[in-house]
């Protein structure tokens, strides 16, 4: 058996993230003892109507979130216990709501820093209703092999090590949450483990004190001895001693109290727990408490270190008298499924990766581009073109190449508002569309007829150079298989009205005296085409393409140069329209040739 929490306990958790975390821990315990999850519902108004996903074994259980306790118990009438994880300023209201629900018999409050008056009101209200209010500041309650409420018991490994998967003979009541696991562990190592362990919280006035729980343990035949862990302040240990000494009790009582150090410390020193403070006249000191316990017949080890041996002696006596029998441990216990990360770390699984990347990695303290840390590139004077080289072509380009790329980008950053890309972005900006969508609208325009000729031009010039074609062969081949030569031709520029940007770029590249087979071929093609028709000149796309192929960039990356640099312009256009607070625009009728049929009558429907 156990007290307070058992196999029939069904829980609602009031609160947010901390409550979800507790539910996960509770699910681990349920999995260990092969029982279904005992959390039925959450109450957390901000998330009402959603579900919280709680891992159980290797699966996930969706637990609904409600707005009120009443809603939760209406939908889950088996709920009989509430755990409160609500902030200190709203904890009392939450606790009262749970106490007032007819389904709920036990409320355990985990919240710390609850005002004393609120805690007293909650405790009094619970007693009036004949219910249990445990806490505040409770770490939780755990009944071995049956039920875990809260995070008490710690990590899964500790549950196993402390033999919490099956009942022992020792009850535990402690003010300290941190020490609860320590005592449970000691009981499992020096004796046969626990029945139930309860954290009552370290506040000055816990809702339920040692005595109420001692009574329950006294009435639980499975519990043969109880360990209480106390500390100076208040009079709960004295009351426990009074209870124990009042008449012959079935359970053995072992007690330790902390705070002897106060005798040699400045008066009024504040310890970790709210309740750990001595009274005005020395009442509530560690010494008076442990003396009271001794007098009542309880076993009081002189130090915490002596607690283990004391528990061991008690257990041996119980064995001798036949009150307890040696427990045979189960041979196999469920193992908590490992996360993929844990299993990989232990070399237990091999995972086939979903994607493969060869250019960058940000898992360290900073991103690395093709292996080079970004900050180091910056500090050594590298620039954006080098980053492009690393991420698009996986090589560290030279200063000269970087300069060419920089110029290409500067030349194609923007070509005014009338071209498809900019116009689409402006249209979107005026319609009130956000930056990324408006820029995307502009980028969508980049294709075979606008700006997207770079890749195609590069592909065919490269094809010609790789296959050692003559200009005549090339033009014939293109006419037969492809169509107009990409990168040749301009809507407004011509031989008499040359494109200054092309001249600039060609001039600069030529001045470097590097090998430019593609550019040379493209210029040779221009000679022939422009002679046929004035505006069939090598345009910016063609020039960029030829130069970039000469620099060794893969054909598939070429459009990227235009997309990247034109993005600068598109962002500029969007910001420009925003700055002017431009209004929605629509096309003027006179810019449309309405060639649709004239208005006519609709025939009757047949």
């Amino acid at each position: 058996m156990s007290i307070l929490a058992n196999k029939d306990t069904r829980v609602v958790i009031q609160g947010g993230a901390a409550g979800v975390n507790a539910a996960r821990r509770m699910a681990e315990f349920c999995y260990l003892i092969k029982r279904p999850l005992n959390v039925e519902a959450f109450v957390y108004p901000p998330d009402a109507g959603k579900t919280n996903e709680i891992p159980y074994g290797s699966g996930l259980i969706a637990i609904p979130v409600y707005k009120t306790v009443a809603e939760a118990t209406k939908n889950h009438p088996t709920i009989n216990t509430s755990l409160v994880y609500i902030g200190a300023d709203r904890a009392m209201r939450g606790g009262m709501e749970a106490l007032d629900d007819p389904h709920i018999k036990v409320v355990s409050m985990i919240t710390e820093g609850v005002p004393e008056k609120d805690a007293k009101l909650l405790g009094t209200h619970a007693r009036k209703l004949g219910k249990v209010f445990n806490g505040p500041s409770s770490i939780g309650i755990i009944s071995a092999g049956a039920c875990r409420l809260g995070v008490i018991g710690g990590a899964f490994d500790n549950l196993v090590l402390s033999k919490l998967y099956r009942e022992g003979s020792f009850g535990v009541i402690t003010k300290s949450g941190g020490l609860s696991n320590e005592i449970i562990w000691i009981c499992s190592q020096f004796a046969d483990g626990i029945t139930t362990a309860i954290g009552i919280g370290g506040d000055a006035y816990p809702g339920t004190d040692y005595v109420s729980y001692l009574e329950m343990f006294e009435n639980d035949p499975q519990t043969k001895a109880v360990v209480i862990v106390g500390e100076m302040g208040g009079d709960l240990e004295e009351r426990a001693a009074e209870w124990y000494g009042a008449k012959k009790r079935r359970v053995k009582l072992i007690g330790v109290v902390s705070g002897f150090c106060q005798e040699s410390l400045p008066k009024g020193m504040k310890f970790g727990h709210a309740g750990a403070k001595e009274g005005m006249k020395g009442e509530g000191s560690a010494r008076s408490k442990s003396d009271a316990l001794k007098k009542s017949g309880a076993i009081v080890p002189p130090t915490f270190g002596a607690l283990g041996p004391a528990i061991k002696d008690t257990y041996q006596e119980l064995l001798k008298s036949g009150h307890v029998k040696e427990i045979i441990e189960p041979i196999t216990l469920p193992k908590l499924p490992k996360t993929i990360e844990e299993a990989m770390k232990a070399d237990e699984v091999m995972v086939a990766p979903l994607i493969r990347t060869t250019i960058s990695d940000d898992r360290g303290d900073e991103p690395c581009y093709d292996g080079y840390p970004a900050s180091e590139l910056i500090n050594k004077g590298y620039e954006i073109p080098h980053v492009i080289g690393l991420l698009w072509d996986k090589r560290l380009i030279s200063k000269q190449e970087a300069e060419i790329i920089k110029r290409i980008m500067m030349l194609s950053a923007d070509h005014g508002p009338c071209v498809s890309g900019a116009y689409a972005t402006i249209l979107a900006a005026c319609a009130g569309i956000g930056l990324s969508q408006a820029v995307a609208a502009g980028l969508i325009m980049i294709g075979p007829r606008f700006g997207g000729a770079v890749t195609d031009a590069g592909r065919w010039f490269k094809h010609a150079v790789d296959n050692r074609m003559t200009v005549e062969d090339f033009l014939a081949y293109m006419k037969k298989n492809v169509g107009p030569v990409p990168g040749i031709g301009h809507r407004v520029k011509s031989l008499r009205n040359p494109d200054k940007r092309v001249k600039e770029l060609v001039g600069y590249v030529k001045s470097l005296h590097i090998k430019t087979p593609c550019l040379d071929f493209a210029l040779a093609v221009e000679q022939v085409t422009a002679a046929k028709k004035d505006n069939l000149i090598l345009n910016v796309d063609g020039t960029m393409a030829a130069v970039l192929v000469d620099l060794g960039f893969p054909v598939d990356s070429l459009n990227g140069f235009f997309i990247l640099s034109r993005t600068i312009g598109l962002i500029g256009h969007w910001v420009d329209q925003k700055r002017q607070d431009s209004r929605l625009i629509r096309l003027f009728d006179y810019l449309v040739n309405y060639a649709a049929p004239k208005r006519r009558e609709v025939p009757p429907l047949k």
Partner: protein
Amino acid sequence: MAKVLEGPGMGLMKKWGIHVPHYAVVTSADELSKLGHVNDWMKQTKLVVKAHEALGSRFKLGLVKVGLDLNGAVAATKDMIGRQVGSITVSQVIVSEMVPHKEEYYCAVKSTREGAEILVANCGGIEVESNWERVKRLCLDVGQTPSPEQLEKLAKDAGFTGSIAKKMADFAGKMFSCFDNEDAQYLEVNPVVTRESDGELIALDAVTLLDGDAKFRHPDWNFQFAAEFGRAYSKDEMEVMAVDGKIKGSVKFIEIPGGDTAMLPAGGGASVYYSDAVVARGGKLANYAEYSGDPPDWAVEVLTEKVCSLPGIKNIIVGGAIANFTDVKKTFGGIINGFRKAKDDGKLKGVKIWVRRGGPREREGLDAMRALRDEGFDIHVFDRNTPLTDIVDKALQK
């Protein structure tokens, strides 16, 4: 538990209709003389000047002066401001009117498990201490308000008669209102006196302890809480307190001058058992500390730096029970960073470090601590199989 100095304490009583002497809290003699020009009571009554600091036995220290005129009060203020008492510098004094009186009484309200009790006695001052049996009590359950009849019966039981019984009942009722509405844990007026001019009961001296946890519902608590052990908080203590107020979980730090065993344990409960173990072994604590509730590693690092800065320490006890949800590896990461920083600053020379811990990711955390040996730390690491406080025995073995 939060102690409130006399000035704000009187302010709260006044708010709930309790008569208090005229008073003013000043930070300089100059300020007092200016106030003297506009406050008639300062010129018409004799004055009391007390240091307005969290100090015990002010009378013995000469920090209470009575029966002064305004000039005398200004001189006394000048004399007290800036006085050093231990680690406290007197920065404020409270100046109040002397209330001529014959009788002294006692009234207090204190928190009990069930609710509160009102204490009344028809003697006051130091007389109460030696006649504690004359103090009569009225116990109230939480949420219950005392009726006028109950209060009157209490006053009569305490030996008050006639009109004064009625006045004392009324006074005690107001004390309870103040206690209940202000989330107090202890309220004491000693002495309560009868003002000769109009026969009103006046609260001459107030001890006020409030529930600091209830601060969220008292926006008008615009005062600082005072340290509770008769000295001011040190700079390091204040810094840790500031961190404590900002984080999930908690970090606590109190210095104890003259000790040689530094404490860096986890858990509000376990930390006290560790302190007990040190004292039981004849060691001298250099501080009290604890961290709990899975605090962020940087907060534990701050705490560690303060602990390593304690003068004259020989051992550091990094103890802890088996944690429920505090991530051992993460919090130990903060401690390790703190240790490294301290060592780089030339601290920790000849200091032995003792570690014992369990809990989530205990193995990784303890391994990381063990690895500090290779960095030249004198560190001794134990796991859950070593009982909780055994590291203290090992550290203090002669």
